[in-house]
């Protein structure tokens, strides 16, 4: 009962502690890491579309990614920097999500007997969608970055061929397309939600934010799915 009193002192925990210990703070971590990943995805999607301009351009793009920032940066330094940031973002996003979900489930242990369909599809699928995306990222890295689970012979430095190989298998297409649909739903709610968490939402901006979220979700999903579709239809081969 006197917890309240104890907190009203001038000695407050560090900013990092405050953020990490608070449900609102953890949501902020999710929002910021989410926005970082989203920015990356936009770039990634645009890059992917180069596959339609042939192996040469696509492979050159892949090579360029490793040389960005030279001569200031050494070969692949920038890429590794991005990778580190991304890994931190993914881990922060996932750990926060996991901890917040556990808190949420603990806060509502017994369900109502009278069940009703609740909230929008995207809201309800955030958790499952997140898990699907997490698994997808692992597969995606093992498939096209390290080549560990790549179908056929993975060729370092020939991303064009590697992509075509992956999407020449039925399961490659299924996994990828399902994941991208999950991504769309995740972004649709996540982008708007992040805006609310970061306090940039408002009554007047709400419609605009929802529209931007929807458009982003649609563009990213469509942009990414264009690649396997290209392979399947033979436009890319």
């Amino acid at each position: 009962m006197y917890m309240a009193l104890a907190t009203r002192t001038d000695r407050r925990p560090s900013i990092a502690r405050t953020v990490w210990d608070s449900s609102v703070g953890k949501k902020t971590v999710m929002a910021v890491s989410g926005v970082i990943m989203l920015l990356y995805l936009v770039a990634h999607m645009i890059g992917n579309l180069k596959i339609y301009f042939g192996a040469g351009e696509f492979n050159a793009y892949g090579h360029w990614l490793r040389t960005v920032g030279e001569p200031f940066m050494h070969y692949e330094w920038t890429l590794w920097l991005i990778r580190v940031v991304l890994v931190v973002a993914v881990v922060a996003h996932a750990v926060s999500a996991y901890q917040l979900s556990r808190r949420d489930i603990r806060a509502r242990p017994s369900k109502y007997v009278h069940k009703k369909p609740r909230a929008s599809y995207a809201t309800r699928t955030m958790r499952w969608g997140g898990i699907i995306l997490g698994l997808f990222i692992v597969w995606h890295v093992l498939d096209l970055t390290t080549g560990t689970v790549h179908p056929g012979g993975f060729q370092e430095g020939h991303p064009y061929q590697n992509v075509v190989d992956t999407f020449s298998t039925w399961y490659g297409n299924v996994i990828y397309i399902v994941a991208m649909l999950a991504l769309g739903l995740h972004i649709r709610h996540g982008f708007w939600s992040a805006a609310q968490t970061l306090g940039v939402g408002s009554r007047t901006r709400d419609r605009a934010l929802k529209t931007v979220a929807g458009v982003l979700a649609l563009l990213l999903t469509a942009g990414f799915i264009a690649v396997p579709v290209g392979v399947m239809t033979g436009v890319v081969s």
Partner: protein
Amino acid sequence: MTSYTDYSTGEPVVDTKAPSGPVNERWDKRRFEAKLVNPANRRKHTVIVVGTGLAGGSAGATLAEQGYHVVQFCYQDSPRRAHSIAAQGGINAAKNYRNDGDSIHRLFYDTVKGGDFRARESNVHRLAQISVEIIDQCVAQGVPFAREYGGLLDTRSFGGVQVSRTFYARGQTGQQLLLGAYQALSRQIAAGNVEMHPRTEMLDLIVIDGRARGIVARDLITGTIDTYFADAVVLASGGYGNVFYLSTNAMNSNATAIWRAHRRGAHFANPCFTQIHPTCIPRTGDHQSKLTLMSESLRNDGRIWVPKAKGDDRPANRIPEDERDYYLERIYPSFGNLVPRDIASRAAKNVCDEGRGVGPGGQGVYLDFADAIKRMGRKPVEAKYGNLFDMYQRITDEDPYEVPMRIYPAVHYTMGGLWVDYDLQTTVPGLFAIGEANFSDHGANRLGASALMQGLADGYFVLPATINDYLARNPHHEAVTAEHPVVQDVLAETEDRLSLLLAVDGDRTPDSFHRELGELMWEFCGMARTDAGLRKALERIPQIREEFWRRIKVPGTGEEFNQSLEKANRMVDYLELAELMCLDALHRAESCGGHFREESQTPDGEAARRDDEFAYAAAWEFTGTGEAPTLHREDLVFEYVHPTQRSYA
């Protein structure tokens, strides 16, 4: 045994502790003369506060801020739910922000006159003085009063006055003021200065060596009955309108705290002074559990009427203008729809008695906004009254923007209560009563928006000053313990009462008795009272009481959460209080304010006061259940506002 109507007369009350001298200097004088408790010693004093409404919440917070150790109780699950929260219209204050001729003296004058010259001048003047501080206090707490575009506070006018001095927060003024007090109290709870006991109901008062030293209370969750001790006890438990069963009070508002205090020696003053509010939503049937008030502020823009012809059952919109009787505007041209509550209520009853009432059973009059909507447009009306209109529509399924509202009077407030002196102390030393629980400021009729003012004046400003004096003069050194024989007796009495209620195992529910008593009271001790009717009620009440103890059925046990037991126990007290109300109404053979005796009216049907005989407050002393009480008169002296027949014509 003597009949209950043969009451005896005791010593008159001579000293109310109000200082002498000019009325506007009395409060300062009293504050200066009051002894103070050394701040370092305050922590050693425990004060019990029962109730967390406007009076109790503000008192608890303020006493704790002063350094006292406060132990506070409420039957609700949270102090924020006290029924002050339901007050809609506003709070009066003599700020004169409108420059419309208002002043402390005018608020004082209006309140004494509005109370039909049955209130104590010293108290009322103090109330008017403090009113201005209340607004400052509440604004500082963040109470979101309505404001104008310039950022300053808005006001509106209310019944019984011709100035605009009512501050408001849409139709939720009580809620906002209560939350302000609740938040101040919460701050003190967090600081450890207030020990809060929610869901705990006071069941008796502990008086040791003639002083209030504690209470017996029941934990409503576990059923445990416990004793709590203090150096002073403050009752802020509200009014007793629920005696009538149907009222605008909250379902669980009850009279137990004040009635038990009365049984332990606190005199009960003017119990028959009950206010019937003119603008409530009419009842729909026997299932009705409570009545809902529509703020009096609606009378600012709404026009009240009934058809001119008896039994005219055409829908309101089909009745042409010249066949409508805007009876308040007709009878009282200068105040019109803004006459005081008692007058508006009685006028509604009269037209309904004439057979011109509207709605089911002819128990209603129209409150019409058609003209207001025509004049101001729908939007402004919506901004001003939107939430009230919504509430009306939800309850009645009728759209007040399209068809006139139907309203009917209902029991709303009780001006009577525990007798208190100028210090708000009852006749039991160390027992204080504040807010609606006391009788002090409203006389025979309370003006609109004055209840909030009185509750907060008592709690924030008056009690914290006067209780100091009592505690300074009575520094109790010996602590009371649970082993004290008096404590043991009171505790045993309480336990026996509850056990008995559980043991009867009869065939009638607490609610069935409550409804029966309520109907009896409404018929004979409601808007119009007669000698014969009151005698009939006084004959009937002991019979109901006898039947109650024979046929009551309370399921479950006392050692658990048991809402039926709570209700039945409150009924025990209603069944005694109702009797005193009727006796008081019978003995006061005059009409004044909310108390209308048919035998005492002017030729044109207005209340006729009889100042020569009844210019006093009646303080009743308890002598035993069913025994005739003893009357102590406190003569009312009017030095500043000379009694005249009230005229609102």
